[in-house]
């Protein structure tokens, strides 16, 4: 810091203005989409290098740190020059790319004087979980191998081997089927769903689209507004199974299935389904009493109105400090628990109203496994009996404030900080009494997302809010921004303290994870996601110091300074030899597209023929058979004296069968000029294109995971038999899946795995 400061003073004033302008420009760019991209492409690629990965094993090849020096000098510069100079500089920088480039060059030169940080190595540990948006993860404090992963669709994945294999459980909540009443008004309590939220939920999960024109389309793809829409949902069709759909949430704020509150705060809430049975609750209560069961504490009305298989988003999971198979999951439909390692889940706290039902946070007390803290949309609740019964905290605004995060001080767990929608709170007595320590008038700043505590000093903490980071070193008497303007107006979803280093913090924004080594004076980009996935959570490994875990919406990444498991033993050579025998990714894709009939080249060739079909005529042939047998007569009576008639004319016509036939040829030569199927649009194209993207995504996921697994297989040959068996099983699954999708490209590899030759031959 001091070195940077001195160097800063050595730069003349005009350079300062330009620098400041660049900083502000960078800030503006950071908070605005296209401008940021413009700058990154124009001039700052060396400043913000992305994490580079080896295409084969997914390892980080370069130091993950980015030497972004903007925040450090930013803070000093802003204080010295002030806003006006900064704004002038910003305008200059924006108006003149040359100036911006010059300033950035200076910054790069400045940054280059700092020593490079130690490289970090990233490995993906998400094996075999289904495609769903991941939300959170949690470690078992008592078992280093056990982890839980939560998702937005009710799935909770658990591993007992550090992520090599995952089991799958699903929290299920379903409204009762409709039995009689559409209620125009909101019920004060009871059913948790509203029609509008349910419909929105369906739309988000791709089950219901409003585009009638696509009524016949197949529901592939995950973009609710895309051309792959469909209107009617047929639940028996596998393609419509929610599990197969990859929910698409364009923003973090939309990550929840919107069936949480049912409060009707949004428009269109005109009907509530599945409420009913108000009279059923007393009857069930009486029945329970008769059976000598205790209905105490049960919300019978809710019990009667919920059941089944409706997915719900799982915001947080907390693992018991003493039993790795016991965990609690905070969901938008209450609190669930498992006692069997995530195989089955039961609802232990349905909430007393819709807001309380929406659980945002859950945590065991670090030293007392019977004490559970539950943050809901309507306040903080504490249980002292392991989650069987919850009491709302009293005497504080926290009793009704949306509570998103709790942070226990490592050396004194009775000191707890709470992050809420109305600021931050602190208790020094384990949650009995709370005091308000952070409140801002701006709602976005008041929206505290998480808290990072100094492991040594409980008065030194950093808050992440909807409007950047704030820090205090005196327990909350005085607050200042952390990172100066770097995070201003940006949602910082998480801030994380290093339990071993007071000044070492991480924070997580929309697309990146940032790191500081000086308690927030300077921040470096630690991980920048260049895919459509975005960071969801960051945690330190409680059992492996120095190892950081980053959860994105689709990946679980283990970041370690100690290198990868892929070391020595000739593993890389054997891996390369193995991969050389198999098809490349492109070849597998090509084979799969051809096998499934969605190869763009083949489809394009078919389309090209459309125009020339006009040369072939439509042929209409006709024929007919006609037969008739007419008869006619004419009688005249002109001589009455004779009293008789005279037949003067008779006519009888007989005909044979008449047969006729012919043909008409019709050329629609207008199609020679243009055929509507020639151009790649229209229903067929939409459908095929949607399938194309779906298959491509699936093949890529399978292929990459398989190669990563092969890297583990060859790089870690000494693994114990149990681990090897699990890995082999997963490898078999991935190979079989790829083989089926590609029409047999992996037949040889799969046979080798199934008959055991792969295992024998792959051993060193």
């Amino acid at each position: 810091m001091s070195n940077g400061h001195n160097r800063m003073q050595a730069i003349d004033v005009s350079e300062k203005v330009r620098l400041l302008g660049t900083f502000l420009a960078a800030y503006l760019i950071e908070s605005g989409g296209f401008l940021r991209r413009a700058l990154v492409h124009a001039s700052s690629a060396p400043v913000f290098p992305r994490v580079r990965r080896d295409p084969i094993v997914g390892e980080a090849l370069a130091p993950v740190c980015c030497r972004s020096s903007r925040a450090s000098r930013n803070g000093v510069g802003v204080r010295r020059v002030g806003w006006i100079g900064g704004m002038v500089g910003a305008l200059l920088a924006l108006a003149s790319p040359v100036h911006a480039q010059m300033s950035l060059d200076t910054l790069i030169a400045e940054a280059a004087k700092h020593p490079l940080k130690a490289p970090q190595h990233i490995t993906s540990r998400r094996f075999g979980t289904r495609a769903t948006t991941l939300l959170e993860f949690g470690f078992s404090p008592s078992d280093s191998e056990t982890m839980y992963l939560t998702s937005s669709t009710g799935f909770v994945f658990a591993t007992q081997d550090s992520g090599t294999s995952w089991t799958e459980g699903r929290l299920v909540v379903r409204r009762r089927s409709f039995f009689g009443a559409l209620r125009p008004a909101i019920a004060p309590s009871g059913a948790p769903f509203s029609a509008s939220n349910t419909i929105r939920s369906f739309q988000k999960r791709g089950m219901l689209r409003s585009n009638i024109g696509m009524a016949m389309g197949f529901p592939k793809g995950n973009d609710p507004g895309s051309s792959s829409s469909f209107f009617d949902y047929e639940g028996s069709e596998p393609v419509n199974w929610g599990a197969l759909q990859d929910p698409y949430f364009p923003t973090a704020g939309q990550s929840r299935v919107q069936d949480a509150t049912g409060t009707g705060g949004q428009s269109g809430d005109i009907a509530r389904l599945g409420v009913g049975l108000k009279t059923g609750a007393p009857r069930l209560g009486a029945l329970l009493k008769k059976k000598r069961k205790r209905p105490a504490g049960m919300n019978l009305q809710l019990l009667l109105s919920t059941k089944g298989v409706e997915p719900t988003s799982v915001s947080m999971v907390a693992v018991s400090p003493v039993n790795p198979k016991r965990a609690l999951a905070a969901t938008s439909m209450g609190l669930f628990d498992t006692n069997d390692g995530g195989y089955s889940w039961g609802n232990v706290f349905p909430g007393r109203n819709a807001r309380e039902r929406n659980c945002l946070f859950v945590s065991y007390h670090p030293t007392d496994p019977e004490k559970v803290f539950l943050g809901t949309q309507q306040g903080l609740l504490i249980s002292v009996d392991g989650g069987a019964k919850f009491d709302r905290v009293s005497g504080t605004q926290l009793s009704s404030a949306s509570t998103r995060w709790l942070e226990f001080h490592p050396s004194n767990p009775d000191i707890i900080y709470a992050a809420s929608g109305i600021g931050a709170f602190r208790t020094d007595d384990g949650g009995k009494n709370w005091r308000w320590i952070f409140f801002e008038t701006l709602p976005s700043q008041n929206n505290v997302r998480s808290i990072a505590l100094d492991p040594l000093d409980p008065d030194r903490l950093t808050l992440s809010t909807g409007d950047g980071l704030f820090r205090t070193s005196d327990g909350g008497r005085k607050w200042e921004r952390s990172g100066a303007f770097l995070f201003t107006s940006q949602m910082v979803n998480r801030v994380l303290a290093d339990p071993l280093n007071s000044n070492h913090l991480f924070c997580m924004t929309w697309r990146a994870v940032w790191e500081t080594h000086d308690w927030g004076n300077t921040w470096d980009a630690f991980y920048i996601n260049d895919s459509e996935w975005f960071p969801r959570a960051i945690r330190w490994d409680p059992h492996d110091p120095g190892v950081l875990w980053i959860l994105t919406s689709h990946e679980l990444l283990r970041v370690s300074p100690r290198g990868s498991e892929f070391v020595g033993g000739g593993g890389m050579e054997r891996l390369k030899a193995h991969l050389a025998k198999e098809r490349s990714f492109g070849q597998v894709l090509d084979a799969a597209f051809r096998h499934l009939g969605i190869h763009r080249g083949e489809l394009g060739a078919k389309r090209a023929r459309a125009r020339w079909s006009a040369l072939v005529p439509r042929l209409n042939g006709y024929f007919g058979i006609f037969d008739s047998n007419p008869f006619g007569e004419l009688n005249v009576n002109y001589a009455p004296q004779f009293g008789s008639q005279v037949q003067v004319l008779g006519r009888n016509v007989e005909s044979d069968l008449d047969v006729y036939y012919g043909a008409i040829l019709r050329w629609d030569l207008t199609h020679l000029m243009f055929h509507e199927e020639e151009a790649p649009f229209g229903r067929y194209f939409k459908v095929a294109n949607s399938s194309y993207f779906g298959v491509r995504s699936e093949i890529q996921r399978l292929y990459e995971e398989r190669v990563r697994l092969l890297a583990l297989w060859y790089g870690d040959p000494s693994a114990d038999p149990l681990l090897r068996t699990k890995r082999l099983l997963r490898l078999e699954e991935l190979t079989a899946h790829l083989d089926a999708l590609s029409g047999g490209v992996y037949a040889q590899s799969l046979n080798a795995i199934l008959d055991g030759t792969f295992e024998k031959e792959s051993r060193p």
Partner: protein
Amino acid sequence: MIGQQRMVGLMALLLLVLGTLSAEAQSFDRQTQVKLDALKAEPGVRDVQEAALQYFSVNTEQVNSMRSRASWKAMAPVVEVSGGFVDSSLNETTDHYEYNFLPWVTRGAAGEGFDVRGKLAWNLPQLVFNAEELDVASLAGLVEGLLKESTRLYYMRRRLQVDMILTPPADQASLLTKQLRLEELTGLIDAMTGGWFSQALESAG
């Protein structure tokens, strides 16, 4: 010299023993291995995938057949046949009142007839290009979904089986949970294969 040979022999023996021990450490005991091998008697993943595709009428042959039939359908005409039968009778009487003897004329016509008309229409341009061939491509989404789900279910079940063999549940509650899960996964695969999976398990013993 003899001492050196003896030393080399001892070292070779030592390496052999260590190697044997190492190999033992990297494999399962006989009983476990037998249980693991017994799983191989169950239907394979390819069988399950094929059964699922067949149950939903989208296996490779069925899809290829649809695609092929779509490309050749223009060879068959649209046939339209119509016909009719007519039975007609007309009688007309004309009286001439100008004369007392009232001459009259009667005229009659009758007859029957039938005709049959036919029309055949070949949409021959479809032999060159038929957009329905592209429509068959939409089945790729269904196929992909079925393969994904059937493969995933199969290996979730297999992992659970292996897990129960390698790390048997220590308590009854865990055992019951895992057995239930096994049943659930078997049922799910059954649902995807029209009950074929359970039948195949039974026939496999």
